[in-house]
């Protein structure tokens, strides 16, 4: 199966410790056949971008509930571009107000899932939008 080769980093940028969502999504993606690497908590944008490059990830799932998304998400996108990882698909979720979603998408984040998004929705979106790097989505 093609999906079994897809590698996803699930990361918690920022200082908040709310990892219920990240862990549940990581497990659901793993159960759906993706290879999932969970970074653990309190990651800096530099740590996340480096991990994605080193692990040759196809996608990054970011979870943040601290309110710092408008600073940290664009910084991660910038670092990925600098490190040649601009074809890595980035999606995210957390306590993110509606008005911020379009701004984040303009920086290159592909999708934002807000509270109440079902695992099925997230898994389906990943299946449709994440292809092994180098293959056109």
């Amino acid at each position, binding site marked *: 199966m093609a999906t079994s080769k897809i590698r996803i980093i699930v990361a918690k940028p920022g200082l908040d*410790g709310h990892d219920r969502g990240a862990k549940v999504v990581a*497990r*659901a993606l*793993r159960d759906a056949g993706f290879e999932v690497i969970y970074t653990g*908590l309190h990651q800096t944008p530099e740590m996340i971008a480096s991990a994605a490059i080193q692990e040759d990830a196809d996608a990054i799932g970011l979870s943040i509930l601290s309110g*710092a998304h408008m600073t940290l998400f664009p910084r991660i996108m910038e670092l990925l571009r600098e490190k040649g990882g601009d074809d890595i698909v980035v999606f995210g979720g957390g306590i993110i107000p509606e008005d911020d979603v379009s701004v984040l998408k303009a920086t290159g984040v592909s999708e934002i899932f807000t509270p109440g998004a*079902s695992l099925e929705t997230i898994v389906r979106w990943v299946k449709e939008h994440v292809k092994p790097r180098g293959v056109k989505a």
Partner: protein
Amino acid sequence: MEKLWQLRQERQRWEATTLKDALKRQPERAQQFTSLSDLPINRIYGPDDLKGFDLERSLGLPGEYPFTRGIHPTMYRGRLWTMRQFAGFGSAEDSNRRFHYLLEHGQTGLSVAFDMPTLMGYDSDHPRALGEVGREGVAIDSVQDMEILLRDLPLDRVTTSMTINAPANVLLAMYVAAAENMGFTRAQIGGTTQTDMLKEFIAQKEWIVPPRPSMKLIQDMLVFGTRELPRWNVISISGYHIREAGATAVQELAFTLADGVAYVQAGIDAGLDVDEFAPRLSFFFDCHNDFFEEVAKFRAARRLWARIMRDRFKAKNPHSWWLRFHTQTAGVSLTAQQPLNNIVRVAIQALAAVLGGTQSLHTNSMDETYALPTEDAVIVALRTQQIIAHESGVADTVDPLGGSYFVESMTTTMEERAEAYIQKIDDLDGMVRAVELGYPQREIAEASYHYQQQLERKDKTIVGVNEFVLPEEQRIPILRIDPEVERRQIERVRRIRAKRDEVRARRALDDLKRAADAGENTMYKVLECVKAGGTMGEICDVFRAVYGEYREPAII
């Protein structure tokens, strides 16, 4: 006995006739009914469900052991619970204004939320604080910030609860120093620091140093608080974050009380007599949507803790047996979809907390799945408590659900299941070791994944999320934090460092390091550091240097 036999006969007759006919006409909505936490719920409860229940031993009277019916003889007939809304955002000035606003509207206690850098012991100008300053709470770097936060507040009349854990010693020191500068004595100030590091490692995950040195710093605070601050509760043993991380009601109850056992043991190991500090331990629980399960959880918590304190720790002072607790309605239960519905959820949860006998209560605001609450949303949340207190009548009699077959049976079930967990943790050599092994963390991750799957299958319903969905969502106004806050806060902490007596500050920090290295009580030294202008980050750096930083093994 004769009576019970007759009742049983009657029940069998009812099942064979009335019930059977009814089920034929209208089958029940489900094969099995379960609580939110998956405890089985029977069709009807009666005397048969109270095996082993003894009116005196299991229930007792309010204000008496085992306190199932409440810790005070008159409960809310004497004094209502403290209405304590958790608040804090932006700068110390912003939060001070919110505190004055809440007190003017009838709130009766203060509760401070700190921002993420403060929770992790970083100054606002630390690179890791980027984008986080003032976002999820107030930024406090120095005793000057604390003085602004507390400006013109009657610290001898209101008590202040501070949700702070890893650097709780630093913020307690800042509070004491600021209060003294404002003219209050140590005997006048009252309040609570959360200081519950075990639940940080289990669930909330804001830490600095590893579990064992964290326990040492807590011991230092316990000794300091017991000697110096007669009205301060040094530890608030917290189940809230455990529940919010995905635990069941039973896990919340069990892990919280097991944490409590570890702190009592730590106090005794530090040389304190149990009755010297146990009366000032308090608890903090979540209150979720399943009404009776929550009421039973609170009643079981009181009974179980009373037994632990009397029988296990041989405490003699009845106040040591008390489980006093604060409750917050379940943030995790709020939905971004149709946010006005959250007002109703909060009202149901708050009612359960009151019927469970809480000492203080925070009601969440309906907009908190988007951002920190607006003033308008906070007022609705506070008014919810006032309506329960003054209009519903539930506060006018003690433990109105006591004696209900269902509630008593559920209370016993919660107690028994929690006891089994506590036994398991004892077998692992206590909570500190269990945390190091990742045991409670794994149990919670399992429970939270299981619950999410139940939602996906619609085994459990969330209105507006997996049923009764609206195509277009309601938009509500949300609170925005001014990005200028971060810049101004960074300037302020740098200015404070530049202006202070550098020799005195360095000497205090060095002295703290020496005391930590030598295993002495660090709390007195932390107080010297804050008075000498030492900042949050500098003081926590001393602990990082001495004990190392904690790194969690990432488990999914």
